[in-house]
């Protein structure tokens, strides 16, 4: 039963920012709405948004996607949200808050008004084009001003200043940062770290000026403004962003006589109560124990404590850790605890500086060397999580603490999940401990998604995702829960198990496999996966009657379906080498069938916009001219990209094009768990970008160096050097083994890069299996590859010679005319979907 509105207490929240909104969520979740009738005032016209990721507004995110909630959410829970309505005063006599619209009575008030950017009192600071960086509106103003500007200066070299500098750079301005202190980020890093940071940031083209106090801003000669510094040096710029710190927005509190700190901030106690117990304050406006917390996580903890106070609970705010892990202008910066080592007398340091890789790490440890008191990282935050766990949980350091910051080949030594105590915080945004995670697992959660849903862990900034997964996996395994790896509901097997069954039992069709080892009709997960396994093993044409229903539409019609239901046609152009005659044919075919043509990243030419019913004729003409299918539609070998190599290039040491053509012809048609790309470069200059491919080959004076498991695309990964100076034969044999081992053991839709990252034993294990033949599989893998190579036939050539197979390429079984809903328009002289 809910309490009738009239008997509910009236709670007013002033400020709809990150922390104010978090309090609203807490009120909803903890059932506080039974007791309180809630009204929220927001001065901005936007509903609470993710200020932490504000800069992404410049890199493609819009206001909607940054929003933390929706108006519907507020309405659904009966919370009155009054945006664009600032509170002007709090009338403590009448117990009312006052806006320019009305007066609103209250029983309790929560101040969550955040802070404002401090603009130093420099004459001229209010000139047009002098801006700040805090709200969506500020960013709109910066964007507008940048359109008329060539140069920009950020005043303030702290965290926010560098973020603003990055944004200006992104808006194509020549950017400089002016800092008053002798180094950048004086709060987070020391002299050495600051120096490194400066080098890194300058190498990105951002000018860094430290120890500069601006005296005044006036009209410039070459740009809009001229900044004059203490030593009469000047800097001219079109746009200035002030980021010289934040100040709490405590004006409401001041005006109504609440206690505020000397340097601002509404004084609160552990319960978040101000000097008037009817009024609470949380977030950046609040001053607790003489400190303002300019980060979002402490604000969230205050919101929890405030809720508890409102509900008569026991949760108190007990201060918060200001450790931060950031990426600024692409540079990792991390700071933990007493990073400067100046709060703990007797503290000792370990420091590591690499001026080549530009990395700096520092540990601050207790005098006995057993406790971590603080740490500072510049250049590589890979070390952060482990250090944070030592710090947070007071774990005893290893005998040689330096090992925690020294580079090792496998990156930072990870602290295993079992080494963490129950109290270890895994997710600091939502304050989830390892104990909380264990509790949900004990209560029946058996997978990551459920744990996430139950605890909200990893749903804040997401920084803990990897740690969370390893804790969950570890705890599940420890409880003997078999993590269900079945491919789908139709088979209680992994892809690898199905592969072994197919191999061992010689099963050649999906029907046979599901009858003997599965149940039901199958689905769009297991069917293509099994089709791929069958093709890897036997390489029968995928258009054979038994295989056709298994394929994704791309494989069925041997063409990639585009967004309007038409297809692309991609003939193989091995190694990217093509004769003029063939080039002419491609053009003629495209003209005849009205196709859009584009040179792709894989060094071949795609023809787009083919209608289903035209595919056989198009391919007829291409095959006639000597083309064959390029398998662009398949999870299979795509292309072998090559540079021009020793035949033409004056640097080349081997014939990279020749090798690329050899390899492409050898492995074409190989079906695998995912697509496979190769690259071959003719010398170490690496023009073919082979190290971003699944298989990369780089010529040496003596032969070929082989790199494996690289990736471009969404998650780039450098390929790793696998073997050196191989001759042609050795190269083929090594790749045969490698690819077949991948086909055999990878998960469905797992690229070689991800497969490699999940492979127990890593690269060394892979080398043992492939190069040293530690499992005795070498011959078998080579034989299996030979079968695939021997059974290769162009699927299109096979299809167009078979009337039964061609039946599938009719648009409609009862009408030969094309689909009238496919409509094209033209752009830059070619067709494109309407």
């Amino acid at each position, binding site marked *: 039963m809910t309490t009738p509105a009239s008997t509910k207490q009236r709670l007013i929240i002033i400020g709809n920012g990150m922390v104010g909104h978090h309090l609203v969520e807490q009120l909803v979740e903890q059932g506080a709405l039974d007791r309180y009738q809630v009204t929220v005032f927001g001065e901005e016209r936007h509903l609470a948004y993710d200020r932490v990721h504000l800069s992404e507004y410049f890199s493609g995110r819009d206001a909607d996607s940054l929003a933390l909630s929706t108006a519907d959410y507020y309405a659904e829970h009966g919370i009155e949200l009054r945006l664009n309505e600032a509170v002007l005063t709090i009338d403590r006599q009448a117990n009312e808050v006052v806006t320019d619209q009305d007066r609103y009575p209250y029983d309790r008030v929560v101040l969550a008004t955040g802070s404002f950017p401090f603009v130093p009192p420099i004459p001229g600071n209010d000139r047009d084009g002098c801006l700040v960086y805090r709200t969506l509106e500020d960013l709109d103003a910066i964007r507008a001003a940048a359109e008329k500007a060539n140069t920009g200066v950020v005043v303030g070299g702290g965290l926010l200043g560098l973020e603003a500098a990055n944004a200006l750079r992104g808006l194509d301005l020549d950017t400089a940062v002016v800092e008053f202190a002798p180094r950048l980020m004086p709060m987070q890093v020391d002299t050495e770290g600051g120096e490194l940071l400066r080098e890194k940031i300058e190498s990105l083209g951002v000018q860094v000026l430290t120890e500069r106090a601006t005296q005044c801003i006036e009209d410039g000669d070459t740009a809009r403004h001229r900044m004059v510094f203490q030593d009469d040096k000047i800097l001219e710029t079109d746009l200035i962003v002030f980021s010289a710190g934040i100040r709490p927005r405590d004006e409401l509190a001041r005006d109504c006589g609440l206690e505020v700190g000397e340097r601002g901030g509404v004084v609160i106690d552990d319960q978040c109560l101000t000097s008037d117990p009817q009024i609470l304050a949380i977030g950046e406006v609040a001053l607790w124990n003489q400190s303002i917390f300019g980060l979002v996580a402490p604000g969230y903890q205050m919101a929890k404590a405030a809720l508890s106070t409102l509900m008569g609970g026991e949760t108190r705010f007990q201060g918060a850790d200001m450790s931060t892990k950031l990426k600024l202008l692409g540079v990792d910066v991390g700071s933990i605890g007493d990073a400067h080592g100046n709060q703990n007398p007797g503290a000792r340091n370990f420091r590591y500086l690499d001026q080549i890789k530009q990395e700096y790490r520092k540990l601050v440890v207790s005098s006995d060397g057993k406790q971590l008191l603080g740490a500072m990282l510049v250049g590589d935050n890979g070390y952060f999580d482990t250090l944070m766990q030592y710090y947070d949980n007071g774990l005893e350091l290893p005998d040689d603490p330096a090992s925690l910051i020294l580079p090792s080949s496998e990156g930072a030594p990870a602290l295993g999940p079992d080494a963490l105590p129950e109290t270890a915080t895994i997710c600091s945004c939502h304050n989830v401990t390892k104990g909380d995670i264990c509790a949900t697992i004990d209560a029946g959660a058996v997978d990551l998604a459920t744990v996430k849903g139950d605890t909200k862990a990893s749903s804040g900034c997401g920084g803990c995702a990897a740690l969370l997964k390893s804790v969950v996996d570890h705890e599940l395994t420890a409880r003997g829960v078999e993590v269900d790896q079945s491919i789908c*509901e*139709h088979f209680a097997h992994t892809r690898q198990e199905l592969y072994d069954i197919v191999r061992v039992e010689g099963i050649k069709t999906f029907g046979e496999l599901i009858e003997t080892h599965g149940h*039901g*009709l*199958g*689905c*769009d997960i*297991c*069917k*293509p996966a099994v089709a791929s396994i069958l093709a890897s093993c036997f390489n029968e044409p995928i258009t054979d*009657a038994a295989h*056709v*229903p*298994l*394929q*994704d*539409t*791309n494989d*069925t*019609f041997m063409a990639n*379906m585009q*967004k*309007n*239901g038409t297809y692309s046609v991609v003939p193989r152009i091995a190694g990217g080498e093509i004769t003029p005659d063939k080039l002419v044919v491609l053009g003629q075919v495209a003209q005849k069938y009205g196709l859009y043509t584009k040179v792709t990243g894989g060094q071949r030419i795609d023809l787009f916009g083919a209608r289903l019913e035209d595919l056989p004729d198009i391919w007829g003409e291409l095959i006639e001219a000597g083309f064959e299918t390029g398998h662009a539609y398949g999870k299979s070998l795509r292309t072998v990209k090559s540079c021009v190599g020793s035949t033409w290039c004056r640097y080349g040491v081997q014939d990279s094009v020749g090798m690329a053509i050899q390899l492409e012809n050898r492995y074409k048609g190989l079906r695998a768990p995912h697509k496979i790309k190769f690259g071959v470069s003719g010398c170490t200059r690496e023009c073919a970008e082979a190290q971003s491919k699944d298989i990369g080959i780089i010529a040496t004076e003596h032969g070929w160096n082989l790199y494996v498991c690289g990736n471009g695309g969404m998650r780039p990964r450098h390929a790793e050097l696998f073997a050196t100076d191989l001759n042609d034969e050795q190269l083929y044999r090594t790749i045969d083994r490698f690819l077949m081992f991948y086909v055999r053991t990878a998960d469905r839709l797992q690229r070689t890069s991800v497969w490699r990252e999940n492979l127990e034993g890593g690269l060394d294990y892979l080398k043992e299996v492939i190069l040293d033949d530690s499992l005795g599989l070498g011959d078998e893998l080579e034989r299996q590859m030979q079968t695939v190579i021997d059974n290769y036939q162009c699927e299109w050539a096979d299809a167009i010679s078979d009337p039964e197979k061609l*039946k*599938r390429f*009719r*648009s*409609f*079984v*009862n*009408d030969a*005319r094309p*689909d*009238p*809903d*496919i409509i094209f328009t033209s752009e830059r002289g070619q067709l494109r979907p309407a």
Partner: protein
Amino acid sequence: MNTATALKDEAHTDVTWQTICTKADLVTFSGVAAWLATAEGPAQVAIFYLPGHAQELYAIDHHDPFSDANVIARGIVGDIKGEPVVASPIYKQHFRLEDGSCVEDESVTLRTWPVRFDGEKVVIEA
């Protein structure tokens, strides 16, 4: 929206069993597309054939509302917890063959029509 139909005008009577194609035109465990005359005008229908299954034939809208392309017949057929479904080849939503309802989005349902064999002929009621 549609501008072409293969079917003669006399097929535009109220509700009738229309002959669409023959068994030989179908692809087992997969779909083909056809034109169908309906009261609202010509429609593109996807016909799926699951030989040996309790219900062997299904007729469902060929138009995929998520991509606005006519592609459903080219999707993969399977089952989810025993219910036969087809997965759209473009954005992979699943539609139940029985009633056309979308598994991922309750608010979306494709049209379905009764379909059966009449000897070797495939006939649909519309």
